[in-house]
């Protein structure tokens, strides 16, 4: 599949996964990839973390106001913008939109919002996604990437709206929740991409959340991104001692031991990751995008570009696998 077709599949992509798997980095790489294919991208960050800005070589946390992270490249590239959208932001905006601008600040201080959002669990999620829906409707960008909260929360985040629709009898809030359900369940408008690592716990959690998300939120799942895959070990088949002996070499024992430990460590890690990728393939019938582990101390624009290229290659390879 070409990258352009991939990016045109839906207007909104929710990027979700367990904490620490590199969700934010993958959101940045997806944005970069889509921008490279000529699409304007808006990244919506829900926790105000600074990872996104750093990935584009900027500093500081995101705010409520949109910032331009990367201008459109000459020759048909798209721009990348980003903003923060917390439940509190969304709530205040909702109140303002409903003629309560005057009291919205006071409300936030009085603690009454805490009471309301406890009485209606999920209201915060619905308001955030409601705002995403509004951005989508307004055509804020060709592609809106939502950097979702960590998995346990991601399920709640994406299922709150359907819960509210069945609980609320009517009124504006139910309408808002219904709009969110409509967005989430329409594959032409929204898809969810799960990010994981080739390790046991993240893979288990990905399999579980994939089924829960499909069943409970009715979302269309895109390919699973497997981040930080180590390269295939080459030339490490035989033990160090055997190689040395065969070549008639005398190696200092400590060094030989270090070579052997490093060899078995690499092979063992590779076996773990192969096994976990295999398990994911077996237990979760979704296409995969494998992204290599980067040899870099931090994620800046250059690294984001490398990851975007790797994602683009993996997307292009989806056709070869006969995947949808």
């Amino acid at each position, binding site marked *: 599949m070409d990258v352009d077709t991939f990016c045109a599949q839906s207007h909104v992509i929710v990027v979700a996964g*367990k*904490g*620490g798997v*590199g969700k*934010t980095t993958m959101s940045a790489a997806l944005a970069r990839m889509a921008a490279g294919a000529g699409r304007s991208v808006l990244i919506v960050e829900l926790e105000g*973390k*600074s*990872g996104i800005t*750093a990935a584009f070589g900027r500093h500081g946390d995101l705010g409520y106001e949109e910032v331009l992270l990367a201008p459109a490249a000459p020759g048909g590239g798209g721009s990348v913008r980003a903003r923060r959208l917390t439940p509190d932001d969304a709530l205040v905006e909702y109140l303002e939109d*409903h003629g*309560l601008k005057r*009291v919205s600040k*006071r*409300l936030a201080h*009085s*603690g*009454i919002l*805490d*009471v*309301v*959002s*406890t*009485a*209606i*669990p999920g*209201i915060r999620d619905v308001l955030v996604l409601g705002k995403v829906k509004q951005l989508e409707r307004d055509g804020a960008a060709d592609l809106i990437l939502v950097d979702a909260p*960590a998995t*346990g929360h991601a399920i709640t985040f994406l299922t709150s709206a359907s819960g509210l629709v069945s609980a*609320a*009898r009517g*009124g504006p*809030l139910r309408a808002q929740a219904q709009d969110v359900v409509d967005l989430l369940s329409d594959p032409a408008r929204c898809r969810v991409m799960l990010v994981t690592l080739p*390790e046991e*716990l993240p893979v*288990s959690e990905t399999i579980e959340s994939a089924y829960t998300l499909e069943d409970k939120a009715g979302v269309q799942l895109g390919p699973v991104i497997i981040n930080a895959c180590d390269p295939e070990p*080459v*030339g*490490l088949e035989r033990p*160090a001692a055997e*190689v*040395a002996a065969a*070549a008639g*070499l005398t*190696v200092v024992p400590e*060094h030989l031991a*270090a*070579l052997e*430990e*490093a*060899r*078995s*460590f*690499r092979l*063992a*890690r590779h076996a*773990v990751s192969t096994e976990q990728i295999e398990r994911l393939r077996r237990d979760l019938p979704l296409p995969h995008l494998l992204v290599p582990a980067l*040899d870099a*101390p*931090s*994620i800046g624009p250059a690294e984001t570009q490398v990851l975007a290229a790797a994602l683009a290659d993996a997307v292009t390879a989806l056709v070869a696998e006969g995947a949808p």
Partner: protein
Amino acid sequence: MSTTESAGERAAPATMPDLVTERSVVVCCGSGGVGKTTVSATIALAAARAGRRSCVVTVDPARRLADALGVESLPNTPSEVQGDWPGHLFALMLDSKGTFDDLVQRYARTPEQAEAILANRLYQNLAGALSGTQEYMAMEKLYELVHSEEFDIVVVDTPPTRNALDLLDAPRRLTRFLENRLFRALLVPTRMSLRAVGVATQALLRTIAKVAGAEIVQDAVGFFQAFEGMEDGFRSRASAVHELLADPATAYVLVTSARPDAITEAGFFAEKLAERDVAVAALVVNRIAPFFGGATDETAERAPELGALEANLAALDALAQREEGAFSGLAAQVAPAPVGRIPLFGDDVHELLGLQRAADQLFS
């Protein structure tokens, strides 16, 4: 646990082993996915190995770790983990809702009052929906176990928290919720309190009822009504928990992985702790690339047959050194807190054996 220790107690333990032999309250904190639960269990295990009676409170453990610790069958109650060590290791899995229910039952004036609260819809959502409640319940459990005097050391795992203040302020947040003046004023609709509520607020409540449903407001009023008279008990309990969290003898262990984003988040967390004058007692870097040591390029040149093996060793050593360098800034930020390292092992073991192996490395 005494709260009269000198301010000198605030000083970080000199070494990682001091943490498990000298401290009695350990809070493991940090962002999600860094292995906080594993590290908490490892610290508790090390304390049992040092001959102490230790207990670990786990929050949402991965299934295999939960199995290994045997905590799943009986949430909220410490059960002993059998093993070959001189001390005793107990573990429990936090049940936030259950902990809250226990509190309600403890402070209710009558069984009927407890029943009314437990049946209220808003109350039933509280543990899951009010942010900070899970954090508070973890701390509440910690307080309860510390004061049971059944353990020499209690180690508590915390929910993934980005901002340290959410953790430290959790008790206060709940109290503030329960003392919501506005809803409390509604309970006694005298002329006085109506004035206190104010015209704008009344309009607002009507709007909330219109937007979200009248039953929401009813539930809320019902909840505060049912809670009447229990605030004092809750408030004093919350401030006792708060005191424990602020006690210099309480050791905060900051857990991170060696990934750059995790290190950034850990730095942010430490900054917030420092704002409250809370020192980091120890920094634990989990899943750090192991250092095998001593790649020599000359050997590779001399023996091309060993080329791939040498290149592999050199690459892994470079990775280990880079990771070590990546958190040196963080280590300086939390100095003089000792830094413990748990290397990434060749295989991923989540059973007791894995914890023992991690403890070997962390407290070596």
